[in-house]
């Protein structure tokens, strides 16, 4: 194997490794969020990703009046748990809907994101929660 080929393989392996590190979806703990804090923003839904193992909701809004609106990424539990525990549906919200979201922010305050606790659809008043421990009895409806 030539020197250049070996070098190319090393570079390729490096990028495979980097890609591996950036793709680590899994069931994970949520202590990257500061659960001792609660924040609220009102904004516009950009996207609801109804996927396992963690649904995400992107909302464009601002924490404080007068701040430039930005995209905030909310993470939740799985679709199945949201249906059982929080009354969610895949079509609970769509892009453009106005919502209020209550969440625990990321400890890394440089990033705009959090663990969603509650979402209220402003047009209808519908409330959706995301506490997986609220499904601990049989015969839920």
């Amino acid at each position, binding site marked *: 194997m030539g020197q250049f080929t070996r070098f190319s393989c090393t570079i390729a392996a490096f990028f495979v490794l980097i890609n591996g590190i950036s793709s*680590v979806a899994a069931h*994970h703990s949520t202590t990257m969020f500061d659960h001792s804090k609660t924040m609220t923003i009102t904004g516009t839904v950009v996207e609801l990703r109804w996927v396992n193992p963690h649904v995400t909701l992107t909302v464009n809004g601002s924490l404080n009046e007068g701040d430039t609106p930005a995209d905030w990424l909310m993470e939740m539990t799985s679709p199945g748990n949201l249906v059982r525990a929080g009354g969610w549906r895949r079509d609970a919200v769509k892009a453009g809907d106005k919502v209020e979201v209550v969440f625990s922010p990321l400890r890394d305050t440089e990033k705009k*994101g959090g663990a969603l606790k509650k979402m209220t659809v402003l047009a209808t008043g519908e409330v959706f929660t995301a506490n997986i421990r609220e499904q601990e009895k049989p015969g839920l409806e």
Partner: protein
Amino acid sequence: MKICSPTIRKSFFVFIIAASVASQTSAQAPKKTPSVINPPPTAQDWADLAKLPDWSGVWNPKITDQDAQVKTNPPPWNEVAAKKIEAMFAEEKAGRPRLIFSNCLPEAHPSWMLVTHNAMEILFTPGRVTMLGESDGNRIRRIYTDGRAHPDVSDPTFHGHSIGHWEGETLVVDTVDILPEVPLAISEAAGVPNNGDMRTIERIHLADKDILHVDLEIFAPKILTKPWKTTRIFFRQRARKFDIVEGVCVQGDLAERVNAEGDHVFVPVEKSAWGNTVSVPAK
């Protein structure tokens, strides 16, 4: 007329004998082991399923009890494993939770039973009980109840090889051949690889009309000082809207987008080292 010399004739004779012996040897050597055929179920086999307890429906776990047992019933970790677990709890408390189930690998057995936050369903068919999980595409356990033994040659997998039998209304399951890399986890951020030779005995039964108990005894000699006993609790749901649907874990790494050619494609999202989604590409 002599067509060849005595030496050549002798050589030819020896060759014929040798070829004959070799032919007989090769005919005997690869004695094929007869295949074990799974018999087709009979009408009686199907009818017998009706005598089993009713475990239909969707079963979701009692997560608060999983949380509580972290403190009230910890595994008897050996010294090395205990130090690792202690470090993981410290990291989790500091907001840097270890990603125990990285790369969307299954929670596997027995951690699926121990720490899952998702529902499962249990199917009975002749000779087998099948557990199907929610959220991961490959979360499945096949428990053979047809009287077979564990295989002579180990073929380790994430969920191991499970054989079961009924003792009254309790399914007793013996599981071996679990991959040594599979963690024994007590939370989504605390668990260590079992490092081999892990075995579990489960006694699965209804504790109440709609409450299922999985009593586990876990033998993990490389990381535990003695077998660990624990019970995990599941609640039955029958509302149709809770039916388990397909869930593919790796889909969480991807966003659904339409590319420049008009094709619907998946594109990667950005994840943190701890597994949460950091950003999603714009549409």
